[in-house]
């Protein structure tokens, strides 16, 4: 039997690509070495959101209960249960993906796979025998894994990556986090909320370096207030690991030595290239593709983390759909332009489009509209007055080119602006759209007005 498509990898790119191909009436198999759902579902987005929900609730109850009129005399948490809940959420969603495979009659094979030649995917069956799938096309969606810091190998106890961090039991007393991207910041928030002494170390001038600087600075201030020690412009120059802990020498303007039970390395990801024939890679080791998501080998396509940044589940899903649509039609697939980025600490950070830095670098003339949640009725009523919306509005036509939000539920608010950018909406379109009152989304509306001196509540 010959497949139309065999997908190697069952993460967001892999399972979504497989389902889309099945929806197009194709005969599809998906080979996954660990568990359907990939990093996102098993060791990334989803389980960490479970942990972070616990953290934000605990943070709220611990620090703001009395403001809200509650009293807890013996507020306590059960660390093992918090971790167990996170795992249970992953289990449930992973089996959900397996159900979707069944529903779409996708052959799901749990085994490590390799691509010996175009049109063939090989894997070791449970009985140990080598099996081969024959297929018209192959989609490589093998993803990426945490990138280790040279000289500081992951040992799972005192030096960990995000994978270990989400099942770390017992809770560390002191934690050093190297890298203040979304993953570093989210774990910093999580452990700090539960009382771990957290130090966040970032080589670049700001935490969340890809975000708009104004947002990064605002978040830095808030996290510092929550008790997280932040070292920016700081480089780890020496490391020493023992059975009980870790010691890092950090160089900024001055040299400092930091000690902790554990160091979390969150400095990015490295590609997971499948075995078999060698595909053309970029200098960083990610698979190179053409405008149809095809690798240098005809009939072999790639999508998701394995084709390079941004390493985001929603981008991977979108790319896989584009790639699969392209494989089975003559339409030219789209390449990534605008995508939202989210960080789930509290307050949350969400953005889409250009940062102010990027817009200036591109030489675009633009207006900035800002609105603080302190002046938003719903935010005050919910007791979440922190943060603001910042919009970049291009001139002369007034299209939205960037949106940056730091606030409660920022990650839910950003969708509207993604749509606005994707549909090339102008400030008039947002202005003329009624935003329900009272909602946090009114702040977006007001930020548009603010750019033209027309915000009502400020």
């Amino acid at each position, binding site marked *: 039997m010959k497949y139309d498509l065999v997908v190697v990898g069952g993460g967001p790119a892999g399972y979504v690509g497989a389902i889309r191909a099945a929806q197009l009436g194709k005969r599809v198999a998906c080979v996954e070495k660990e568990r359907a759902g990939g990093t996102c579902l098993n060791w990334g987005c989803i389980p960490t959101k479970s942990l972070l929900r616990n953290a934000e609730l605990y943070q709220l109850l611990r620090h703001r209960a009395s403001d809200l009129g509650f009293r807890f005399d013996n507020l306590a948490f059960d660390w093992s249960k918090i971790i167990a809940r996170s795992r249970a959420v992953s289990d449930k969603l992973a089996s959900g993906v397996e159900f979707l495979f069944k529903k779409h009659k996708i052959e799901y094979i749990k085994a490590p796979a390799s691509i010996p030649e175009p049109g063939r995917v090989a894997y070791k069956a449970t009985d140990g025998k080598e099996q081969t799938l024959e297929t018209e096309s192959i989609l490589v969606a093998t993803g990426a894994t945490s990138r280790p810091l040279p000289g500081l190998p992951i040992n799972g106890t005192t030096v960990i990556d995000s994978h270990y961090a989400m099942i770390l039991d017992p809770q560390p007393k002191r934690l050093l986090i190297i890298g203040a991207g979304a993953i570093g910041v989210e774990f910093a928030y999580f452990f700090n909320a539960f009382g771990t002494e957290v130090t966040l170390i970032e080589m670049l001038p700001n935490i969340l370096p890809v975000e708009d600087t104004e947002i990064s600075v605002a978040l830095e201030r808030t996290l510092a207030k929550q008790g997280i020690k932040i070292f920016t412009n700081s480089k780890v120059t020496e490391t020493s690991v023992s059975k009980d802990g870790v010691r890092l020498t950090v160089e900024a303007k001055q040299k400092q030595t930091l000690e902790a039970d554990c160091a979390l390395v969150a400095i990015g990801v490295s590609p997971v290239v499948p075995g078999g024939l060698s595909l053309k890679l970029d200098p960083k080791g990610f698979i190179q593709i053409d405008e149809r998501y095809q690798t240098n080998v005809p009939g072999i396509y790639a999508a998701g983390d394995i084709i390079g940044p941004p390493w985001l589940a929603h981008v991977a899903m979108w790319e896989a759909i584009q790639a699969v649509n392209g494989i089975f039609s003559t339409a030219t697939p789209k390449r990534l332009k605008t995508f939202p980025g989210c960080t789930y600490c509290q307050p949350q950070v969400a953005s889409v489009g250009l940062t102010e830095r990027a817009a200036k670098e591109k030489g675009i003339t633009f207006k900035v509209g800002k609105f603080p949640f302190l002046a938003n009725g719903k935010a005050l009523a919910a007791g979440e007055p922190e943060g603001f919306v910042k919009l970049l509005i291009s001139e002369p*036509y*007034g*299209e939205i080119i960037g949106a940056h939000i730091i606030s409660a539920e920022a990650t839910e608010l950003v969708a509207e602006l993604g749509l606005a950018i*994707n*549909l*090339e*909406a*102008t400030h*008039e*379109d947002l202005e003329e759209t009624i935003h329900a009152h009272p909602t946090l989304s009114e702040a977006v509306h007001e930020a548009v007005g603010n750019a033209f001196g027309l915000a009502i509540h400020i």
Partner: protein
Amino acid sequence: MPIPIEMPKLSDTMTEGTLLRWVKKVGDSVEVGDVLAEVETDKATMEMEAFDEGTLSEVYVGEGQTVQVGEKLALLLGAGEPKTASTAGKQTETAKQPAPDKKQAQTKPAEPPAAPAPLKITATDSGVRVKASPLARKVAADLGVQLEDLPGSGPGGRIIRDDVLAAHEKQSSDTPQPAKTTAPAMVGQPASQSDVQVPLTGMRRTIAARLLEAKTTIPHFYLQADVDAEPLVQLRQQLNAANESVGLPKYTVNDFLLKATAVAATHVPKANASFAGDAIIQYAAVHLACAVAVDDGLVTPVIRDAHSKTLSQISSEVKDLASKARSKKLKPEQYQGGTLTLSNLGSYGVDQFFAIINPPQSLIVSVGAILRKPVINAAGAIVPGQRIVLGLSCDHRVVDGAIGAQFLAELKRLIETPALMLV
């Protein structure tokens, strides 16, 4: 419920229509099927029928006014229905004050046409709903790019800014563009006071757009053959003499040429075809279009299934179609769907020419007048002869030189041995 009556879309290419005459007047009662008005489209003058009954209560568009497809023309009230101030008022207002972006489209024949200086073309110039992003619309308005014919690369085929910029760039470079019929660089301007500026009719606009498209996008090539018309002239004389004695109408030379073209197309089916992007459509039937000059342009009524019609059927049908075409009474099915065309300028004394292909067809036969000429006969002597020159314009994407030549040879054979087309 008051029922608004809108400008109907009476043909595929119709974007606007001129209300020639109101047959019903305000206050008249209307039955289903009654003719409300006469409307001139790009192709023909048509009667607009009522689909509902009631009383014609308001008329928003005056006679001679051109409006977009979908625009409200009148309001019909049901029996005993009072006209509500709000609806009537609102609609009158809409009609009187067209939305700013439609202003340019509303032609008022009474007013002299404006100077051609402000050629800023708005997005909804022809009333077709265009899927374009708000930004694309603004940029298009600013750069004077017409959105209607642009391919959209955004979500769901939406036209986005980049599409407009690309079109603008193309427009600014010297490549002629089909969508550019009204682009400033190619537009003539009145040079003196005595020059007359005639506003385009719907038909003129369509001819301009279609023929520019045909001539610039179809790779034309041309074949020509000099044909002995004597046998045909003789056959025609015989048949007409016979017909006359029993009071039947006479055949024209054109009738024979139409018949010959239809037969030739069945004998060379590869010539009866269209280019369809990723395929060639070879038609099973021959629907033969015939160019007919009318007052302000030309139309090409279609003789359907011409391959299975006799000379006399073709003759009477083409007479009927031509007279309908001249009085603009053709129905859409009478001028759509042709698979090839014959254009005859013989009656004007033209001895030969090459017509522009009528897309999506890939072949047009152009014939001149039958002329007396000296010819060298089989014995090598110069003798008086009657000759007709056939021109053939072919779309090279569909019809190669050899196929075109085969078709032309077949046509020549049929004309020179005209009995063959009758069997």
